[in-house]
């Protein structure tokens, strides 16, 4: 649940940052699919997490040092929303000016994604395909293993449980109550 809310929050953040396409994707993929996947995994693995010591003695210094280094690194970055940042100077003005005429699409993100960088998107589809195959192979093997011991387990029990019944009178619906009485007696 929290992960779904988290994804929705980040989708809202993307809207305020003018990235509507990204927000759509995040809301659908992050808020929808990943929440379902996470809940499914929790259902399959059991949601109890053992209360144990966290390794905070190692983790906290590592995290603090890394974070400090990263923040030191941001000091040279362009300011938030600065239109003169280097990222906005190169390549992008051409897309903004010409993509409308060249592809006929009003949405620049769509025209870049599907037209200019179509190969990129095809590679992305390959990645999804590979991941899908991986998940199928992993979970398929898991369910096959679960199915195999299932018929193997009752077999050793059968001689003990069935023999008394076959030795006595044939078990029919009419006889069953009498058998039950005999058992009680």
């Amino acid at each position, binding site marked *: 649940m929290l992960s779904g809310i*988290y994804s929705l929050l*980040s989708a809202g*953040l*993307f809207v305020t*940052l*003018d*990235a509507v*396409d*990204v927000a759509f*994707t*995040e809301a659908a*993929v*992050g808020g929808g*699919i*990943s929440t379902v*996947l*996470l809940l*499914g*995994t929790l259902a*399959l*693995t*059991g949601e109890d*997490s*053992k209360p*144990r010591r966290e390794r*905070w003695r190692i983790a906290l210094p*590592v*995290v603090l040092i*890394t*974070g400090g280094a*990263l*923040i030191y690194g*941001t*000091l040279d*970055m*362009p*300011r*938030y*929303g600065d*239109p003169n940042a280097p*990222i*906005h100077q190169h390549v*992008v003005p051409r*897309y*903004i000016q010409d993509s*409308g005429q060249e592809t006929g699409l*009003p*949405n*620049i*993100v769509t025209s*870049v994604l599907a037209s200019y960088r179509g190969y990129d*998107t095809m590679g992305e589809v390959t990645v*999804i395909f*590979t*991941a899908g195959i*991986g*998940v199928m192979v*992993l979970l398929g*093997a*898991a369910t096959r293993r679960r199915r195999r011991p299932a018929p193997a387990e009752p077999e050793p029990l059968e001689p003990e449980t069935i023999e008394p019944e076959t030795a006595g009178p044939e078990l029919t619906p009419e006889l069953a109550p009498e058998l039950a009485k005999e058992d009680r007696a």
Partner: protein
Amino acid sequence: MELLGLYNYWIVVVLMMAGFYTVIAFDNLVKKIVGLTIFQTSVFIFYISMAKVSGGTAPILTGEPEVFSNPLPHVLILTAIVVGISTTALGLALIVRIREAYGTIEEDEIQAQDDQQ
């Protein structure tokens, strides 16, 4: 205050370190995946916030001269979100498989079982 203009990066760093901490401090594999997801989202926010131009709008051509946010990081992150969800799905499937094989998803217990063999 000139430095305050960097606050978007600082939010990203805090989020990223929260995810990083979750990955290295917990033994539960599902928690590690959740930490990785948070880490991923922080990178997404990093790119998208770099693309923002103050006073700009979403990069959709309307025919009028406007200031647009940078569309290229949006494209990158669209791809990254989808690739990220497929890697997350693969990781979760691996966890389910590990649970089948070891009966636990705590990393230290798995390590202990491996050492016994």
